[in-house]
């Protein structure tokens, strides 16, 4: 295990001076994930907050090779890059023999929704690419619209809580399970409050030969309407309420739950911490809160029961 001091001295691939919102969790996540690679990185980034906020021409926050093409195709773009890498390596035409690591980064909109086909494609082909999803549970860059990562009951600009409708009606997509169903070597879910957990998982992802996937909660002060100094705390609250379990899945079946809250908090604690859920605390919406709690409990119980026996000892 490394100390924070050691971590701080590692090479930074993402510099300050970007234009992401104050309090955004993405730079914290990036610091940990990029810091986990011991090899030069090539990054493909989907359109979204991070891409827009890091490359305002003529500036760039990226110290690694980086490409952005479109919204739903960041991993397809990377498939082309890695194909050339394999080809040139085979033909002995690489400029240098240094091993590279390939990282795709997308928000939840470009991962859960428009990018899912190309993510699924590269995973089926077993390409040696790490995928990082920073999940702020909305289409944050285009103005906080709903994505399929938006949880039930959340008020967004396209699922506003009104006098008739109580925000988003559908349960969020379980992307981590969908990815795990590809039986890729490594899938993990984490959040920035536990820097050591995220760093270790990112290291594991980069070490893994073949596809690896990291789903990381990224609290968004702008669209969750929270204080800018609360993002990391919120990510912890998500774990303590089991809204965002921290776990990893190896080979598609071996599940390990990495964090079990000593006192599992009720989901209402999570809901009242953010403006997007405030309307759910009204009396007539109690049935939605109950439904959310029921889903969280089911999911949590499933994870605990599905844990690999050896791991739990």
């Amino acid at each position, binding site marked *: 295990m490394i100390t924070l001091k050691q971590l701080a001295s590692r090479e930074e691939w993402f510099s300050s001076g970007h234009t992401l919102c104050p309090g955004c969790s993405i730079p914290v996540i990036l610091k940990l994930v990029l810091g986990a690679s011991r090899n030069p990185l090539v990054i493909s980034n989907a359109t979204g907050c991070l891409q827009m906020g890091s490359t305002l021409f003529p500036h760039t926050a990226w110290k690694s090779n980086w490409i952005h093409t479109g919204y739903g195709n960041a991993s*397809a773009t990377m498939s082309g890059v890695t194909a050339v890498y394999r080809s040139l390596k*085979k033909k002995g035409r690489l400029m240098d023999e240094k091993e590279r690591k390939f990282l795709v980064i997308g928000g939840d909109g470009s991962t859960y929704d428009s990018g899912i086909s190309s993510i699924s494609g590269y995973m089926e082909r077993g390409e040696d690419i790490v995928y990082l999803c920073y999940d702020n549970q909305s289409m944050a860059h285009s103005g906080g619209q709903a994505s399929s990562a938006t949880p039930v009951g959340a008020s967004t600009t396209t699922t506003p809580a009104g006098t008739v409708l109580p925000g988003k009606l559908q349960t969020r997509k379980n992307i981590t399970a969908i990815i795990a169903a590809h039986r890729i070597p490594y899938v993990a879910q984490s959040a920035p409050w536990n820097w050591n957990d995220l760093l270790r998982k990112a290291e594991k992802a980069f070490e893994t030969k073949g596809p690896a996937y990291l789903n990381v909660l990224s609290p968004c002060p702008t669209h969750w309407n929270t204080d800018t100094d609360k993002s990391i705390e919120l990510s912890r609250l998500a774990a303590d309420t089991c809204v965002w379990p921290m776990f990893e899945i190896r080979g598609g079946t071996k599940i390990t739950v990495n964090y079990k809250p000593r006192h599992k908090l009720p989901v209402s604690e999570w809901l009242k911490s953010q403006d997007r859920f405030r309307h759910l605390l009204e009396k007539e919406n109690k049935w939605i809160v109950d439904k959310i709690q029921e889903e969280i409990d089911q999911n949590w119980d499933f994870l605990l029961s599905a844990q690999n026996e050896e791991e739990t000892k």
Partner: protein
Amino acid sequence: MRANKVLDGNTAVSEAVRQLDPDVVMAYPSAPGAPMLERLAMDIANGSLDTELVNMESPQSAISGCIGASAAGGRVFSSASSQELAQMHEMLFIASSLRLPIVIGIADRALSAPINYYADHSDAMAERDCGWIQLFCESPQEAYDNIIQAYKISEHQDVKTPVMVAMDGWITSHTMENVSIEEPSEITDFMGKRIPTYSLLNSTKPLTIGSFSSPNYYFEHKLNQFQGMENSRKIIREVGKEFGDRFGRYYGYFETYKLDDAEYGIIIMSSAAGTAKEAIDRLRSRGEKVGLLKLRVFRPFPFQEIQERLLGLKAIAIFDRNIVPGSQGGPLYNEIRSAMYFCEDNLRPKIFPYIFGLGGRELNLSDIDNTIKEIKEKTEKVESENGFHFVNVRYRQVNNE
């Protein structure tokens, strides 16, 4: 040694690609161009080609992969037709805007709806504004030659713009003809390896590709791209001449057939030019002074050269193989009419728009005979040039009141 083979258009394309030894083939099958990829896959399976072929999950992913591969410094090939090309639409703009050399082969096929499996130019013409160089082929030989030239043009330092090489689906893609296949070492010598200016795989000089461009810069970025396309005008001619000097088959923006002393002209693209040449021979034998201009390069459109070549004709019939509802004529008609705007009035031919061959409808020799008759009559009677003319169709008139 040059080999003379009997090949269809798809095989001719894959022969050319094979000789160019691409680093990567991004494969997504689309009829009728899929055999281009299948033959490369077979070569790889048999160990005669050392290329990474990636079976992508969608056309959008295939073209995205081409962008990634080219940005990583590789030579890349893909193919698409019809719906699959339309699905690439968004990424075609990004490929050309990022100034990436890429070549894709197209076996032109009509766009849905109604779904149809046969040749017309609605797919390629729908992409005419996406910043790609567009070459159209009449025959399998031209498909082979154009693919080789396409890489040379696309990878040229002054151009760095992607190229699509289009032939008519089934008609050219699946019809076998004699094709001269050049000696592989000659092709390697002609082409060389791609030497990229930049590469995502150069870890000593990290790149940011595809950044956010504000109103302060976007316009200049687009002009830069525009310049690449303009530069290609010269390079296309140079490469066509160099190819001809080496292999004996010369290429320019267009080919003319019996046009020098012609009074009436036909302008057409791709495989239908074969029919037009035959019709012209028949008309000539009856004493009609008719000629053909077969356009090879649609983008960049050779305005000046076309204008010079068509000056002095009495009338021309422009054959478009796609229809653009609400427009004043097909894309070829509009470009040529625009090119002729700056002629002296007395030198400008009458220009008539014809739409033919949609969804694989055949073009008969008699259709061309009738067209020539029609434009002759209209010219002699000084009738209006306005209005569409539809060839070999049940309803010739469309009410536009």
